[in-house]
Each structure stands twice: as structure tokens, then as C-alpha cells.
């Protein structure tokens, strides 16, 4: 058995898992015909058995986390605040609905893990009508939470079954109040991870709580400088197999959300290089600059049909470009990052094992030149030893 202070860190993603000891790091593609634990043991059993249960720390983003649908009454306050809290709790947003136009929205057919209803300061009331109840009647969801005006909570409770009511996320200065909804969502996510049969089995090798990966990464960011040399302000891109996560420092947004968090998180679903490969390709095909980017990289669109290492590389490069594009156009996503002020772009996740620093920087330079018409050139920082994740697990 190794000495007490040494820890084994395991991250289970939707596509691959990584196992990190104080001296080594291993990464393996998951075998979906096997249970996670069996898969882990067959690939890294020797390493794992060297550690005591209490020294093993596991986090997971398998399944891409929980999904939410948010119903609010304005874009600038209720929907924006709830979106911010959901992202920071590691939740993926399926859609946001502006209540006044609720009849124009289609009802998603997928099961929604949690519906969030929000709107109004506590001194305002009657913000919703029966329309919301008939919408919810058609929706397939597991949990519902109300975080709007206290005056409306009774009528909401009377009309929505098993509704959880929490304090308003909008205070009487129209500022955001995060903690209650954030705790609720984080716990829900946690329960979801722990409730999955496959994850339960992992408790055979750890006696610590299994945490969600985005939570771990977000927790590491305030301490990032102790492990990686980055120049503030920075953004962190975690391009995974199924989704892409962006963590950014608050100085980069110019807006009305005033919180104590230093870092926020944003997720682009279906932008990944394995599970979401097809939707990544679709996004690339509808981006007018990608043709030129492919030329710049010396390939043609035929690359989409190849299953080679080269094709994987190109897709990862496209993913970086598409994420930057998505963040650059005003109001296309719910925040607009001041990309010209960024000094570092940190990349973490599997991508750092596949792309070289040069291959990343050429994309960043292309993006700034073509999309922002600027010679600005932030440094790419490759977190290839998973320092950030290691840090987050240890904090």
C-alpha cells in the first residue's frame, strides 16, 4: 500500500476515463459493452488495487449531466439568472422559454430532469397564468422547482405537483441570489450520479463521495495559477466527447449579473468529438468560415468522412474554432465574452493528448484574424497533465 498522502484520482467521462496517480496519468477509451467498474479494473486494475479506498477520488461527467428547461418572464433577469446558476451547478440547459410567448414553443419530447420556473421580485405577483400549467402538463419531467416571486409560490404549489419552492433568485434590487437554487441543483446532480447503477459500483473502490466533473473543474479555477502558468483573464475550454464546457473569469463579461463567483461556466451541448461527432460536423458545415479554415489546415471537406487520427485532429481543431465563434457574436449565447481581452486560452481534457500547442495556436490566430479582424493572439496553455482537474479534486 502506498503512503497515506498519495491519492488516486479517477475521472469517468462519456467517452473515456482517466486515472491519475502522483507519478503517472493514464487515459483509456471506455468500452461500452462493459460496466464502468469492470472496464476500469480490466484496464487499470493493478494501479487501482495499490490504493486504499479512502485515497481514491472519483468524479464523473458520464451522460453529460442533468438537463433542465427554464421558464422565465424576461431575458435580462429571470432567464439569465437561472441560466447562470444552472450552468454553474453543472446542469445542461435544453431550452429557455420566455413565458409571454410560451404558446410559440414546441414541447421537447425528451425527459427533462428538472424544470425551473422563475420570475418577478417579491413585491410583484400574478406573473403566470394557466398557460404555464397546460404547458407543463404536456411536458415529461422528473422535478420542478419554483424560484420566482414569493407571492406566487402558493398558486404555483397548488397547480404543479411535487413542486419544490425555494427563495427567489431575484432580490429587491434586481440582483441575483444564487445559493439556494445552486445547492438544490448541485445536490440533484449529485443524487443523479450516485443513483446510476454503474456509478454505485464504483463505491467498491472508493470511500469518498463521487463528484461531478464540472463542479471539480470550477472549484479549481481560483487556484489555477498554483499549477499552470496562465495570464489573467483567461478562458478554459474542456472539449469532451459529448459536450464542450467553457469556464471563464467574470472580468470578461460586461453585464448585470453581480455575484461572488469569480468564474462562470457555460456549456455547448452536442459539441464534442466522439459522441457528438455528427452534430459537430453539421455545425462546421453551416459555418461560412470553415471552408477557409480547412484550406488553411490543408484538407478538404472529405475529411469528415474519414475515421483516421488525422480526421480526429481536424475535428478537434474545428471544435475549438466553433466554440470561439459561438462566444463571439453578440447575444448568440446568453453571455458575450470580451474575447479581445483574453490573455490565455487554457485547454484541458482529451484534446491536449491529441493536439500540439502549434495546432491549437494556429486555430486561435485564424479565429482572431478572420472573425474579430484582430492581430490579438492569446497564448494557448495546454493542461496536458490534468493539473486543473487534479487541483480541483484536492481542494
Amino acid at each position: 500500500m502506498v503512503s497515506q498522502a498519495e491519492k488516486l484520482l479517477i475521472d469517468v467521462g462519456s467517452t473515456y476515463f482517466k486515472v491519475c496517480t502522483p507519478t503517472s496519468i493514464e487515459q483509456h477509451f471506455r468500452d461500452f459493452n462493459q460496466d464502468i467498474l469492470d472496464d476500469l479494473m480490466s484496464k487499470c486494475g493493478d494501479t487501482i488495487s495499490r490504493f486504499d479506498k479512502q485515497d481514491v477520488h472519483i468524479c464523473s461527467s458520464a451522460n453529460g449531466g442533468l438537463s433542465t428547461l427554464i421558464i422565465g418572464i424576461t431575458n435580462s433577469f429571470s432567464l439569465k439568472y437561472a441560466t447562470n446558476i444552472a450552468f454553474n451547478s453543472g446542469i445542461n440547459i435544453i431550452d429557455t422559454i420566455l413565458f409571454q410567448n410560451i404558446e410559440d414553443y414546441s414541447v421537447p419530447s425528451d425527459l427533462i430532469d428538472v424544470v425551473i420556473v422563475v420570475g418577478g421580485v417579491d413585491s410583484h405577483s400574478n406573473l403566470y397564468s394557466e398557460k404555464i400549467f397546460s404547458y407543463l402538463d404536456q411536458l415529461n419531467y422528473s422535478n420542478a422547482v419554483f424560484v420566482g416571486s414569493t407571492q406566487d409560490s402558493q398558486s404555483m404549489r397548488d397547480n404543479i405537483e411535487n413542486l419544490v419552492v425555494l427563495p427567489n433568485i431575484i432580490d429587491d434590487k434586481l440582483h441575483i441570489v444564487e445559493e439556494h437554487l445552486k445547492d438544490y441543483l448541485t445536490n440533484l446532480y449529485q443524487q443523479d450520479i450516485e443513483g446510476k447503477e454503474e456509478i454505485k459500483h464504483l463505491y467498491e473502490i472508493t470511500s469518498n463521495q463521487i463528484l461531478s466533473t464540472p463542479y471539480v473543474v470550477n472549484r479549481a479555477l481560483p487556484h489555477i495559477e498554483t499549477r499552470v502558468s496562465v495570464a489573467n483573464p483567461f478562458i478554459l475550454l474542456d472539449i469532451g466527447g459529448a459536450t464542450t464546457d467553457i469556464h471563464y473569469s467574470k472580468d470578461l463579461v460586461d453585464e448585470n449579473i453581480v455575484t461572488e463567483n469569480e468564474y462562470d461556466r457555460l456549456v455547448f451541448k452536442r459539441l464534442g468529438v466522439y459522441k457528438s461527432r455528427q452534430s459537430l460536423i453539421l455545425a462546421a458545415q453551416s459555418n461560412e468560415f470553415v471552408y477557409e479554415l480547412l484550406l488553411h489546415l490543408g484538407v478538404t471537406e472529405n475529411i469528415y468522412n474519414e475515421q483516421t487520427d488525422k480526421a480526429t485532429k481536424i475535428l478537434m481543431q474545428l471544435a475549438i474554432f466553433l466554440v470561439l465563434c459561438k462566444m463571439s457574436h453578440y447575444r448568440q449565447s446568453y453571455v458575450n465574452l470580451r474575447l479581445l481581452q483574453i490573455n490565455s486560452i487554457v485547454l484541458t481534457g482529451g484534446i491536449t493528448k491529441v493536439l500540439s500547442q502549434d495546432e491549437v495556436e494556429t486555430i486561435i490566430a485564424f479565429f482572431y484574424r478572420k472573425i474579430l479582424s484582430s492581430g490579438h493572439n492569446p497564448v494557448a496553455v495546454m493542461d496536458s497533465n490534468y493539473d486543473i482537474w487534479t487541483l480541483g479534486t484536492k481542494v
Partner: protein
Amino acid sequence: MKVVTGVVGNDIHVVANRLIDLSLKARGYEVYNLGVNTHLEEFFDAVVETGAEVLMISSLNGEAEGWGREVKLLKSKYKNLDDVIMMIGGNLVVGSGNTEDIVARYRKYGFDLVCHQIDLNTGLDMLQSTIEERFPS
């Protein structure tokens, strides 16, 4: 009575905004102050979230005209703002201009009360009378 106020656009002149906040409170209004650098959509959204009866926009640096032209279109996208008292004040044009023309123009943009370079207290008295007309007690 609830009032949403703030300075529109990329305007950072904050002094009048502080005074407006204080004066409104002194007159008994419930104030939601969005501060400087506020976009039009945020003003309307704040009215929806708070149920304010009055929207009081300030503009000092000369941007007002551009925003004024956007008001009608943006407001038409909302389904419940028709009864809000819309007020604007400060320096409503670049340089100087004929007050009568300015008032007429901003009324067309959809403002009920237009206070071009009018002292704050006079403006608040005008608001008071409008409220008394709209909501006779």
C-alpha cells in the same frame, strides 16, 4: 408606486442617476435603479420583473436619439407594457436644439414625458401630475 430608472446606452454619467435615485425615494417611490450603461431591453425587462408603473430613462452624453428610435419596435415585442408611464430626461440631443421640436420627436418615439435639460425637481413634479391623471385616487 414603483419606478425603474437608469442611464441608457454606453453612458457613464452617474451623478444625475444618484440624484434621481435619492429624490425619487424621498418622494416615496419604490426605486429600481439599473445604474449607468443600461440597455433598452434591460429597462423593459426590469419593468416586467418588478411590475413598475413608471420607466424613467436618463441620457446625458448624446446617445438618446439613437435609442429613442428603437423604443417603439422593442416595446411592440412585449405583451404587457402598454400602461407604463414612459419618461426620459437629461441631454436629449447632441449640442443644443429647439425644445419644442425635441419634445415632439420623443413623444413620437413613445415617451409620455420628455424633459430635455429640465431640472430634476421640475421633472418629478411633471411626473406627479401625470400619475394623478392616470391613477386618480
